[in-house]
């Protein structure tokens, strides 16, 4: 059954531990700019929100990639980049509505959340359980739909309410 | 009323008209107006003649014709008068033309400048000979006859059968000599497979260079899936000094068209292309005209000869890139892409032009087809050697007496070509070697003169048949310099795709140049051979695979000459400037001061009646003194 990374941003305390562990695991270094997850802090509003690749059902990055280098992992259903096929045109970065992918300047690679092969470390290290992996059973679906609803309402805003 | 031919009767009708025009009941004057003819002033001669005819209100027929092959003797003028043998005048010029006219007017025979007389005319297609009147009263007994001329004696003209005999712009004359009968035969009596079978049995091999069996090629295209297929005529003749394709295009365009139509029928193509280089304006003009006529008479277009088969031909001009002779590069070029070879497979037969099955043959190959159909595979396969059938047209150039186009049966020896046909080396010089197959061919040395010329033999000695260029060189030619020349040609003509070819040629060229400059080093020859091997083995297309041939053969057959350059810093042929010195022979020098005056470098000193001396430091080896000295007191060392 498909499992997705969910964020309960009401719980997030903005400590950015997820950024640290993510970059530590993937880049062997503690560096937020190399992390696949970013905590957006609204210090004036009093809110924190971790943003990461949604591993969409129909990813815009996959659709745009002219080299067919982006694919879905059959097990984790994470959206992955085949760096051997990647030609570095960065269209995926441009086409993603939420900035879910980025380009590693030094290693010259597209980097994005790969759900740590189904067991995301950010979930394990988040002290408040603001991040969790839920399988898409009835509850999961319900909660994900909730997120998607918010997400699509965001898209509406971006696209001026057009469908 | 439509001229379209739909039956044998109509074809015969047309032939009759053709014969009339070939053998009119009035004087028929033909001027060699192929490029070789024009280059030597054929046009001027033609104008003079036509003016003269007009002026004197003569009832004579003046027409341009193709190249008879004997380019050395151009411009050639043929005179055919009713009741007389045909007479071939050589090296004509305006005043001679005047003279000729006067004689015709006075009804006499002009006996100067006669190259030969022609007693009979051969119609290869019908295997019939047509005797000219002996015209005994004209008393031409001591004029040599065409068939007996050493230049023609050993020739067998199949591909060039009509060149110099017909007016290339007159379809009827082509038909008169059997043109389009083969096509008719094929369309009315043959299944496509039969045609192919015939071609296979004939043993015909591609005349473009590689010598791949033509029939086999056709089968592949025939068997390839897809209803759209193409045939292409490769008329991208690139070798310097080779022009046999040109002369056929100019002298007998219909033979190519007929060949292509037959091929198209056999393969199942409905469209064809002729890829001809833009440097051949006359050829293109003649082709256009021929295609136009062929359409008028229903040899091209829909329902050819009233049958169900339709076929059309387009002309595609090449920008004259040597590499576009290579099939895949040629296709790319027609498609409007960079003329650059691609790996095979897939072969064009599977996926060629626009990705469709495509059959490519060279001009000469196509020209052979109608004859094979007419005379049959058995007849054709009797000509030539065991594995190389038929004839091959060579362009004989360089240090040779009779330069020109010669078509000879396969298996003839080099000696026969160079001495019997070519008439040997001018100025009594020693024959040194012959470069066959153009720049990518090899250099065959004098001691292999008895080599029978066919694909296998030439390959065996490290050269290739190529498209049939033959550059004869004598003792005054430096082989190192020669190889250098060919490489400098190839470094521009390689498409530049393969590292091995692009960089390898430049590298070899650099070494050769060094050697000719006297900067050669120990081991250069070995290095050259190494590089040559790599270029040969590692490059993609024919160009790269053959590019090193000149280096390999020269370094193999003339190693001593290379070593002379490298070790002794000497150029035995006295060609490489940096390795020669001009010195004055004191005995011979009369002290005329001529060379002193001529020398731009003021490198020669001396006073009247005293032997002069060359200051070597100043001498730039321009050779002016050498030329100017009347007493050949200046010698090369």
């Amino acid at each position, binding site marked *: 059954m498909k499992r997705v990374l969910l964020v309960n*941003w009401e719980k997030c305390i903005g400590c950015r531990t997820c950024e640290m562990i993510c970059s530590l695991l993937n880049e062997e270094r503690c560096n937020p700019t190399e992390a696949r997850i*970013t905590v*957006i802090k*609204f210090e004036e*509003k009093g*809110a924190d*929100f971790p*943003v990461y690749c949604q591993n969409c059902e129909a990813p815009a990055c996959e*659709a*745009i990639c*002219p080299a067919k280098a982006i694919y879905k992992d059959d097990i984790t259903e994470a959206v992955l980049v085949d760096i051997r*096929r*990647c*030609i*570095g*045109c*960065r*269209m995926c*970065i*441009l*086409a*993603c*509505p*939420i*900035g879910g*992918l*980025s380009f590693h300047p030094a290693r*010259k690679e597209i980097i994005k959340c790969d759900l740590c092969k189904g067991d995301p470390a950010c979930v394990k290290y988040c002290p408040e359980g603001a991040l969790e992996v839920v399988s898409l059973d009835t509850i999961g679906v319900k909660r994900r739909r909730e997120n998607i609803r*918010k997400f699509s309402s*965001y*898209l509406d*805003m*971006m*696209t001026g309410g057009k469908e | 009323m439509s001229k379209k031919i739909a039956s044998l009767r109509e074809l015969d009708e047309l032939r009759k008209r053709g014969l009339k025009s070939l053998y009119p009941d009035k004087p028929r004057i033909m001027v060699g107006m192929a490029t070789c003819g024009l280059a030597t002033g054929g046009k001027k001669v033609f104008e003079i003649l036509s003016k003269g005819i007009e002026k004197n209100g003569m009832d004579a027929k003046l027409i341009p014709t193709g190249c008879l092959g004997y380019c050395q003797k151009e411009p050639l003028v043929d005179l055919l008068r009713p009741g007389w043998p045909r007479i071939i005048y050589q090296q004509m010029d305006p005043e001679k033309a005047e003279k000729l006219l006067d004689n015709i007017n006075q009804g006499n025979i002009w006996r100067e400048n006669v190259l030969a007389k022609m007693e009979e005319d051969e119609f290869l297609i019908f295997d019939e000979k047509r005797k000219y009147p002996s015209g005994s009263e004209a008393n031409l007994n001591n004029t040599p006859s065409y068939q007996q001329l050493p230049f023609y004696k050993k020739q067998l003209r199949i591909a060039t059968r009509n060149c110099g005999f017909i007016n290339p712009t007159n379809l009827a004359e082509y038909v008169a000599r059997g043109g389009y009968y083969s096509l008719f035969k094929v369309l009315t009596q043959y299944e496509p497979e039969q045609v192919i079978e015939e071609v296979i049995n004939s043993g015909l091999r591609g005349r473009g260079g590689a010598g791949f069996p033509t029939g086999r090629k056709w089968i592949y295209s025939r068997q390839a899936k897809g209803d759209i297929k193409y045939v292409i005529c490769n008329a991208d003749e690139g070798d310097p000094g080779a022009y046999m394709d040109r002369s056929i295009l100019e002298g007998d365009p219909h033979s190519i068209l007929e060949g292509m139509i037959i091929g198209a029928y056999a393969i199942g193509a409905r469209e064809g292309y002729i890829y001809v280089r833009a440097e051949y304006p006359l050829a293109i003009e003649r082709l256009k005209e021929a295609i136009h006529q062929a359409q008028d008479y229903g040899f091209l277009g829909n329902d050819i000869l009233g049958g169900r088969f339709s076929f059309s031909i387009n002309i595609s001009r090449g920008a004259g*890139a040597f*590499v576009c002779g290579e099939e895949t590069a040629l296709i790319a070029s027609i498609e409007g892409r*960079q003329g650059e070879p691609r*790996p095979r*497979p897939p072969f064009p037969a599977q996926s060629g032009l626009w990705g469709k099955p495509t059959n490519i043959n060279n001009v000469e190959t196509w020209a052979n087809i109608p004859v094979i159909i007419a005379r049959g595979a058995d007849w054709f396969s009797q000509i030539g050697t065991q594995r190389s059938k038929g004839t091959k047209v060579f362009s004989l150039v360089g240090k040779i007496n009779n330069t020109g186009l010669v078509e000879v049966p396969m298996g003839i020896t080099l000696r026969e070509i160079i001495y019997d046909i070519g008439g040997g080396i001018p100025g009594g010089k020693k024959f040194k070697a012959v470069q066959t197959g153009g720049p990518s061919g090899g250099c065959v040395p004098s001691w292999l003169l008895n080599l029978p010329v066919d694909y296998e033999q030439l390959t065996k000695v490290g050269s290739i048949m190529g498209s049939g260029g033959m550059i004869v060189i004598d003792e005054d030619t430096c082989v190192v310099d020669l190889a250098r020349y060919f490489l400098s040609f*190839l*470094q*521009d*003509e*390689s*498409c*530049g*795709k393969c*590292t*091995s070819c*692009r*960089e390898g*040629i430049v*590298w070899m060229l*650099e070494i050769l140049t060094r050697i000719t400059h006297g900067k050669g080093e120990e081991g250069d020859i070995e*290095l050259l051979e*190494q590089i040559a*091997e*790599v270029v040969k*083995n*590692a490059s993609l297309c024919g160009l790269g695979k053959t590019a090193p041939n000149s280096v390999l053969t020269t370094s193999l057959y003339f190693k001593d000459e290379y070593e002379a350059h490298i070790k002794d810093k000497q150029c035995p042929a006295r060609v490489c400037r940096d390795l020669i010195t001009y010195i004055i022979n004191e005995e011979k020098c009369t002290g005329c001061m001529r060379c002193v005056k001529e020398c731009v470098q003021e490198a020669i000193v001396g006073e009247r009646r005293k032997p002069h001396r060359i200051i070597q430091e100043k001498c730039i080896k321009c050779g002016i003194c050498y030329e100017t000295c009347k007493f050949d007191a200046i010698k090369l060392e």
Partner: protein
Amino acid sequence: MLKIVIDGKEVEVEEGLSVLELAEKIGVKIPTLCYHPAVSAYGACRVCIVEVIEKGLSKLTTSCTCPVESGIEVKTNSEKVKKTRKLIVEMLLARCPDAKIIQDLAKQLHVEKTRAPQKNENCILCGLCMRICREIIGVDAIGFANRGHKRKVTTPFEIQSDVCLGCGACAFVCPTGAIKIEDVEDKRKIDMWHTELGKVKCERCGRYFFPESAVEYVKRKSLQDVDGFLKLCPDCRKRVLANKLVCGW
């Protein structure tokens, strides 16, 4: 399934592979410079050359362009192959003495120095940039010009390209790093292509992030309506997303 012998061991493979791809699959290392899995094989660098024996006939051919056929035997490192490959690398080393990848390859093949005439180029004419641009990006902004030793990659007429997206894929795939992309504030410069492109300014943070032409490309290709976020740099998209979701309370 096809049976072939490669370096002595017999392997079974499905059809449609090239010898190079097969070798990679079974862990046989063949050096190559002009191969990229995303584009069609080209066979320009000749470094991936191997010896193929078919019906007793041995020939050298580039493994990237050589399809695996039943019954062939492949030697990826025979003496002949080694000799040839070394000399080719020597040629490349003379052409691009400063290219890291060539130096490494030379080291790996024990080529200490080159005897070929020095050129000091950066481009080995592998055509990857051109192929990527044509086959993958599909804009065909660059191509080869001239023949033989004068050959080079450039834009038509060697002037500013009007189709180049400035996506930088060419620079990314270039094995020698010959293509330099320079980002200066609101412009992206690619000197090698004589091209300078304007960049889009992020509506939110005001930073310039992508060449306009690339953004246009995405507009053309995308199915969903993208006008909104295309005006934002990727960083700001995160913030805007978060902002929207957070504004709920």
